[in-house]
């Protein structure tokens, strides 16, 4: 039987190729390529019908297991191995989306950059968005990198930065590879990464996935770690189940600045070049983030939120659609204070509550201060720079 390869073949100039389309056929005894020289194949090979001589078994080592139709091979620097079967499971791995702001503080900052939750404890913490310098970008090797996350702490108990990946079945029973770039401001710091399987409300007890410890230094380095996650067979999966990636998890780093960029979690044993979860598009990455959190306002006064109207003489209603379908029917987070909001040209109100919320749309109302003519409409705006309105559907 003849198996033909096409496209993406090993370059004739010997340069390391990044991908190689694999064709798996246990019954193949001859492999043909069309128009391009093939090197390093471990069977009888012909190109355009002519046998290629001089090939030796193992001229390119392979370490490939359990291939399935559609697999690709990737070169890991010394071997051809199974390529990833998924993209990057980490949303906002390049820290490009910061809907909640760009500077946070506290013993524990909570959600910071989109999808990234700080669960640190004690002491004084700050988490900030930092711009790459040209030298940093050269060290990273990605020209379109813009920002990285910096966590700084003095005192306290531990530092922990987490991303929750929806659905505990993700990568269950599979080998996964985590990669990221990191450095510390001075000295070194030990990072003890975890990838825990959390089975949600009413579900089985969590299962801890432990990576080997790594040591961060003052130089940007790409760290790559591979583990195999436990199977979820026989487990009970409750609502809100997820993988809990604790990418920064340190107890000896109190007092350090830690910089982080390019977090990627993918199936298989190899770290492929960093790629956003949305496939590379910044717009797609924002949309992925908005599935979990959507900031309506920009923390500024006199910003238009939507069109509202008086449903009765004592209640106003503002309704709007979300930019993407949210993960769950969301919670409205709205700051409150004297005259924070206004249904122009008249009423000021201090606070708003949600109503009629679905996965795709939601309403705000006030029925404690509103006073107007039923049916009259107007622009609903923020009237304070502290006014903030957002929808939250985080795990």
């Amino acid at each position, binding site marked *: 039987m003849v198996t033909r390869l096409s496209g993406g073949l090993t370059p004739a100039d010997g340069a390391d190729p990044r991908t190689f389309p694999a064709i798996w056929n246990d019954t193949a005894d001859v492999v043909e390529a069309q128009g391009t020289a093939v090197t390093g194949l471990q069977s009888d090979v012909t190109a355009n019908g002519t046998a290629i001589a001089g090939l030796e078994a193992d001229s390119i080592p392979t370490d490939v297991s359990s291939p399935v139709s559609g697999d690709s091979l990737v070169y890991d620097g010394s071997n051809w191995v199974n390529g990833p079967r998924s993209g990057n499971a980490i949303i906002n791995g390049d820290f490009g989306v910061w809907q909640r702001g760009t500077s946070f503080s506290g013993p524990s900052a909570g959600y910071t950059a989109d999808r990234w939750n700080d669960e640190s404890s004690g002491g004084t913490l700050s988490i900030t968005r930092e711009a790459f310098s040209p030298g940093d970008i050269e060290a990273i090797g990605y020209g379109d990198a813009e920002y990285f996350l910096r966590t700084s702490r003095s005192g306290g*108990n*531990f530092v922990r930065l987490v991303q929750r990946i929806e659905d505990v079945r993700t990568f269950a029973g599979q080998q996964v590879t985590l990669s990221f770039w990191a450095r510390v401001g001075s000295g070194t710091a030990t990072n003890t990464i975890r990838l825990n399987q959390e089975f949600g409300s009413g579900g089985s007890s969590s299962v801890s996935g432990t990576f080997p410890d790594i040591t961060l230094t003052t130089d940007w380095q790409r760290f790559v770690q591979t583990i195999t996650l436990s199977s979820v067979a026989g487990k009970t999966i409750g609502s809100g189940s997820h993988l809990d990636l604790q990418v920064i998890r*340190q107890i000896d780093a109190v007092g350090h600045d830690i910089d982080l960029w390019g977090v990627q979690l993918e199936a298989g044993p190899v770290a492929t070049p960093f790629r956003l979860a949305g496939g590379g598009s910044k717009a797609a990455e924002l949309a992925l983030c908005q599935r979990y959190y959507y900031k309506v306002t920009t923390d500024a006064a006199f910003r238009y939120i939507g069109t509202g109207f008086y449903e009765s003489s004592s209640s106003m209603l503002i309704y709007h659609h979300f930019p993407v379908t949210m993960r769950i029917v969301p919670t*409205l987070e709205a700051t409150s204070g004297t005259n924070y909001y206004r249904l122009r040209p008249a009423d000021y109100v201090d606070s708003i509550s949600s109503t*009629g*919320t679905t996965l795709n749309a939601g309403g705000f109302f006030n*029925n404690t201060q509103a006073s107007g003519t039923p049916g009259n409409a107007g622009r609903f705006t923020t009237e304070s720079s502290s006014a903030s309105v957002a929808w939250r559907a985080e795990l």
Partner: protein
Amino acid sequence: MRQYEVIEFGESVTIAYEENGVRLSFPDNPSNPDYAEYLRYTAWVEAGNDPEQFWVAEGNEPTQLEQP
């Protein structure tokens, strides 16, 4: 201690509370984790427990209080 409000507006039921100058409001939808927490809280109180103890009881404590 968190003070929940239950508000009926039109055909919708909204549960709301204020914390640190932020008003949080959510529907009575089982998929919403804030509503699930509200149900656990009300069950806790209806069982005769001290409402303030709900937030430090096992399973309800904030995750950031755990040791790594």
